[in-house]
């Protein structure tokens, strides 16, 4: 009992710290400069994710925006980065884990860097995921001007994109209008630069600190050019 009490106290203070941390970060989607902490992350000098050699060029690929249908080319804004993820909104475990890790990573970055990162989520489950659903889903995690919900009802259009990237997914057969069926998908994030090159890929489970570090590294490289 004594032992577990001590554990409780230790975790409690840790939680207080964490709570303070997450209040500072989580609830607040607005831009906050990372100036408060003296022990700011020491940025790594190498990418934590996986890089292909040569980088995969996805600049010729695009998918329609789920809301207005305009083509979203797989290319970041100048000097920016685009996080490209394939998932679905009825996903309770893997997708929200990844998206909330993105958010934590963005909060780790200085505001001027975080604002240069956009998030595109393409649905592999267009039957259930409407444009409206996807927007509000992404809006839960990110700023409205930062998100790109992508959706196509044309399976061939989707598979052209997924095959190039190596994304795999399978949607269980279901009747029209069905609300519960299984979806599997590879949960890799593709970090695309302003030339449409995939600079790094994050497997599921990579932590938000590593994401932040990679983003910082890639964003800093732009300046040096």
């Amino acid at each position, binding site marked *: 009992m004594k032992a577990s009490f001590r554990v409780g106290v230790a975790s409690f203070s840790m939680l207080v710290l964490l709570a303070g941390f*997450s209040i500072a970060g989580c609830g607040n989607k607005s831009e906050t400069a990372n100036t408060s902490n003296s022990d700011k992350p020491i940025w790594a000098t190498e990418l934590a994710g996986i890089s292909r050699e040569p980088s995969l060029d996805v600049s010729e690929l695009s998918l329609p925006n789920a809301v207005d249908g305009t083509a979203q080319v797989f290319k970041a804004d100048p000097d920016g980065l685009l996080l490209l993820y394939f998932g679905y909104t*009825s996903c309770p475990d893997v997708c929200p884990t990844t998206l909330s890790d993105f958010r934590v990573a963005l909060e780790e970055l200085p505001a001027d860097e975080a604002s240069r990162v956009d998030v595109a989520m393409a649905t592999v489950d267009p039957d259930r995921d409407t444009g409206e659903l996807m927007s*509000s889903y992404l809006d839960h995690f990110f700023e409205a001007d930062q998100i790109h919900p992508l959706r196509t009802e044309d399976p061939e259009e989707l598979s052209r994109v997924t095959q190039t990237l190596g994304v*795999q997914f399978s949607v269980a057969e279901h009747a029209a209008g069905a609300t519960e069926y299984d979806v599997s998908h590879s949960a890799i994030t593709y970090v695309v630069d302003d030339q449409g090159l995939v600079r790094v890929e994050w*497997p599921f*489970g990579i932590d938000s600190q590593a994401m932040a570090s990679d983003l910082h590294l890639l964003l800093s490289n732009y300046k040096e050019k």
Partner: protein
Amino acid sequence: MKAMRIAPLAAITAASLLLGACGESETAEKATDTESSASETTAAAKSALSISGQWARTSPMVASAGAAYLTIDNSGDTDDELLTASVDASIAAKVELHETVAVEGGATESSMMPTAESTEAPMMNTGATGSAEAPMMGTGTTGAPMMEMRPVTSIAAPAGGQAILKPGGYHIMLLELAKPLEVGTTIEITLTFKEAGEMVVSVPVRDTAP
């Protein structure tokens, strides 16, 4: 005489609820009526389970499903198993135990195979900060493994061991949410174990893992 015995139990329950608010607690025994809570306490003592690190993820307004995670420590010498989890209908209509597993890309529809022999789901590159040697990388030609969710019939909490429910592994899946899970709120989840019986855990809703 009876009142005397109830008092410490109530105190323990209160204490655990208090800790529970901070997301880290000993298991709160169900104390709705004294008779059943007394017997449950004995059962719990036998396999000596404690729950820690419990949290449920905030759910986007539009999400119909949510997930909760926790760690079960079994300090006793009897193997136990988490059989079911349940919540009040005001939270979600259905609760299932699920496991997310990575399956090799290109695999055909795998059958629903409940596997609960390991306490941790096989996962790619868990927690690692990633490296070029990550097993996830594969050859790049066959495509990336897919994350697939499977319902499981139970989750083992072996004697002297633990069962870890965490993102990308085992989780308690809340289906048909009555309303979004909002940060700062707490939900009660009743866990039913094969040996220890029922335990009610107070689960804080958070944006990220504690």
